[in-house]
């Protein structure tokens, strides 16, 4: 990993993540206070990385944007922003408008809150967030939007309602499977009788988001994304949060339900009965695969490359549910030490006891080097315990690696350029079945 550059970054800037997050909110309308090209850059990025999903209700090139020019750089952009907000409220029909800043206004020192608060005072449903691109990546942009909602949109002082929870940690568009993954995690929680506010699914509403402070627990299915917002939520609304890994497949889902059950003091017999039923269904569906699984010898070594959610969650599914052998797990996020430790703790704790080799590397072209160091290549020996048969689960940037080691490949983590994704998801018991289908289909594609 270079200290001086990031190769083919698998994320946008914080503004890009923030804009995508706002467009995923019900009735959400971002108002970019930025240079003109930011919106187009996001649209093109989603086109290439988010499984063919671009925009939404008010995304892509429909996004209102102040399109700052040199004039604003010299004289300041606050008046231009005021004009843009006023006209946006006339032209664009939204439920919640969120002003998001790019690099340019922040470097010249525009105060967006001075402008936004004037409109708020007049009753417009509008908030703002400071999301300049140099502040971090798009996952952080998601966190910043949640922080802004927590601070300025959620009603305060609401009494807690038993059985109500908020679900965070899946980042719209940065996880190309965000819709399905939210649905899958939500479904798990509903199985044990909880009322779930997941913010970004079709059944969520701005009204339910405003009342998110009623929740007795925030569940963040990520060791990284949404963590800071969850901390601020606890400070402002006194709702504690529970951090769990993205629950992909039966083992992770089982543990997920048990952890939530304990945190909320749910009746454990009931939780166990639900887990038993769901596992029974999972294995009933898996049952007819048994002949071909054996006849075709479908166990694989694997390299897993993914973001802070997927690297661990995919590895765990391969290890604990599928009985594969992921020897190398590459997390492609730029993380703080404590975040790395959190992920390292997760991979040390698989129920099967199998250990992968976890590395942190942003650059696609370096992954093969990590693999070669971990599993030295043949040196002309007559008998050589090769890394194979192998499989590469990663992003579409890992196609080259898969070709280099002669393995089939599946794109799951951003960028996913070579799959069409609508509401497919891998979370929950059933998500595990979807993932098994996709992995094994890639193995037998030439059959």
């Amino acid at each position, binding site marked *: 990993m*270079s200290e*001086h*550059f*990031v*190769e*083919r*970054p698998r*994320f*946008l*800037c*914080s503004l890009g993540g923030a804009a995508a997050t706002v467009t995923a909110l019900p009735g959400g309308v971002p108002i970019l206070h*930025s*240079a*003109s*090209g*930011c*919106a*187009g*850059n*996001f*649209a*093109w*990025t989603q*086109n*290439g*990385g988010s499984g063919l999903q671009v*925009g939404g*209700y008010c995304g*892509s*090139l*429909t996004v*209102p*944007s102040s*399109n*700052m*020019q*040199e004039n*604003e*750089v010299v004289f300041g952009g606050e*008046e*231009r922003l005021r*004009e843009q907000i006023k*006209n946006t409220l*006339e*032209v*664009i*029909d939204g439920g919640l408008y969120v002003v998001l800043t*790019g*690099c*340019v206004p922040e*470097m010249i020192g525009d105060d967006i809150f001075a402008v936004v608060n004037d409109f708020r005072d007049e009753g417009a449903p509008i908030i703002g967030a400071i999301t300049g*691109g*140099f*502040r971090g990546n*798009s996952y952080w942009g998601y966190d910043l939007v949640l922080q802004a909602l927590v601070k300025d949109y959620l009603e305060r002082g609401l009494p807690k309602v038993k059985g109500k929870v908020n679900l965070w940690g899946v980042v719209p568009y940065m996880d190309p499977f965000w819709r399905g993954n939210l649905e899958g995690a939500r479904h798990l929680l509903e199985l044990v009788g909880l009322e779930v506010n997941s913010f970004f699914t079709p059944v969520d509403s701005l009204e339910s988001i405003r009342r998110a402070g009623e929740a007795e627990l925030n569940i963040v299915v990520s060791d990284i994304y949404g963590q800071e917002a969850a901390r601020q939520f606890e400070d402002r609304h006194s709702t504690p949060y529970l951090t769990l890994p993205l629950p992909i497949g039966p083992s992770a889902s089982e543990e997920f339900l048990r952890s939530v059950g304990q945190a909320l003091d749910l009746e454990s017999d009931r939780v166990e009965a639900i887990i038993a039923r769901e596992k029974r269904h999972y294995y009933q569906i898996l049952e007819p695969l048994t002949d071909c699984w054996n006849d075709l010898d479908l166990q694989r070594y694997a390299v897993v490359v993914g973001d802070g959610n997927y690297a661990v969650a995919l590895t765990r599914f391969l290890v604990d549910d599928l009985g594969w052998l992921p020897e190398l797990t590459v997390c492609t996020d730029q993380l703080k030490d404590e975040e790395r430790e959190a992920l390292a703790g997760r991979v040390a704790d698989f129920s099967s006891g199998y250990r992968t080799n976890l590395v942190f590397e942003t650059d*696609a*072209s370096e992954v093969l080097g990590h693999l070669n160091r971990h599993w030295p290549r043949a040196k002309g020996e007559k008998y050589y315990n090769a890394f194979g048969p192998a499989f590469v689960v990663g992003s579409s*940037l890992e*196609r080259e690696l898969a070709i280099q080691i002669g393995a089939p490949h599946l794109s799951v983590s951003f960028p996913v*350029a070579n799959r069409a994704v609508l509401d497919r998801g891998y979370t929950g018991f059933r998500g595990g079945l979807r993932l098994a289908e996709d992995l094994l289909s890639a193995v037998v594609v030439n059959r």
Partner: protein
Amino acid sequence: MSYFDQKVPPKREDRLKAVIAHQDSICGLAKRCEGKGGKSCLIDDGERGFTQGSICLLLPALAMLNTLPDNVVLLHSALGCGSCTHSQNANVRVGSAVRQGKARDGIWLSTALDETDVISGGEPKLEQAIIEADRRYRPATIAIVAGCVPGIIGDDIDGVAQKLQTQVSAKLLPVHCEGFKTKIWATAYDAVYHTIGRNLLEERGVTDPKPEEALAVLREQEREARTVNLMNVSSMGRVDEQELERLLTALGLEVNVFPVFSHPDSFVKATRAALSISTCPTHDDYFLGYLQERFDVPSIIRHMPIGIANTSLWLRDVAAVFGAEEQVERLIAVEEAELREALEEFRPLFQGKRVFISAGEFRALATANLLQEIGFEVVGIRSFHHDEFADEEYGKLAKEAKTDYVVDIANVQPFEEANLLNRLKPDLFLGHANGNMTAAKLGIPTHVIYNTGLAYIGYRGAYEIARRLHRQLKNPAYNRNLAANLWLPYTENWYGAEPFSYLNTRGRAENE
């Protein structure tokens, strides 16, 4: 002094007086532009008080730079700038597969300037990044592309490149793409050509051949006398290049496609060609002027070979340079006859259907011409900008226009388009990439006017566009379903308002 002696190329609003905010009609523009004799644009640019995001020059610049084999793109900006490459990479993969036989991923890097860099300057980080990129990838060239952040904090990418050039083996190519500095994103082409011109073009012809090499040199010179540069800044896929190569080869010419997918080493060919031919004046005028000025390579920059008449006009201009007037007439006669006969199959479905077209100015106007030729009635055009090069095109269209339809000069701005389409209710819409969603959600059959994998250019392109439109119109159920179940994010009031309500209102509230 040449523009190319400056570190930064001029922006097009200064050099060409190009505009992006203007309301007009086809006859109005034809009249304004008539007989101006190529002087720069006479329209004053407007400003909109409500705007939607579009792109900046960084995006088309990267579309060119990422195709260059053996090149690494090093973005010097905040982390997000250049992430558009995730979609452009598809074109790099397909383009290299069809040209070089192997799909290749582009390599792009970001210095990912953070808060500390914004305060203390990004030059030290850039220097280290250049050195490490040179060692890790061993590329022939490193394009150092500046975004908005260095433009504001004052990093000098040219100075850094100059300082480091002797320490690295790659040729360093500084490219200026500070998005806030120009509203005309076609400045991108100038930005990339500028660095090519300043850093990659060298005269390397043999001037004093040894006697035993004289014959080979003479043969090479003969070849060069019939070699033409066919300019492609990434708006043509291989299939379109092949169509133009087919036609030019039929005139006995050898074709050097330049600069996309050209290896930096091959750029020297461009300086020794007999002629450079543009397929789109929006792209190439800056560079062709330079090739003429420094290397005496003349050029043709008129007509876009989209549509039947336009393709023939384009070919005639080329043939005239090489004295092949008779040859070209025979070629055109055969090609046009074959094409017209082939198009008959589609005409009944097209006849009288009303179409709205949206794209970069020259492409929109040339495509409008083609659509008229195959039976459609044009009822509106939205051009991303306007400059002098398109003057003649408005005249061509006005002559054929059934009504004096609207021309909206807008850097996308789909809100105006939504309003216009809601009034005009056309039967078909052709829009640029990321530009069809408005019409699609209104239920209008749509087709992409630019996609580097599809055929658009020449006689073959005319047929293929017709074939694709015929397919779209045979079953437009997809968009119809969208319209029945989705809606655009505009208020009812906006659909009732005059479509250009926000034109030239910018700053008005403060001035009153």
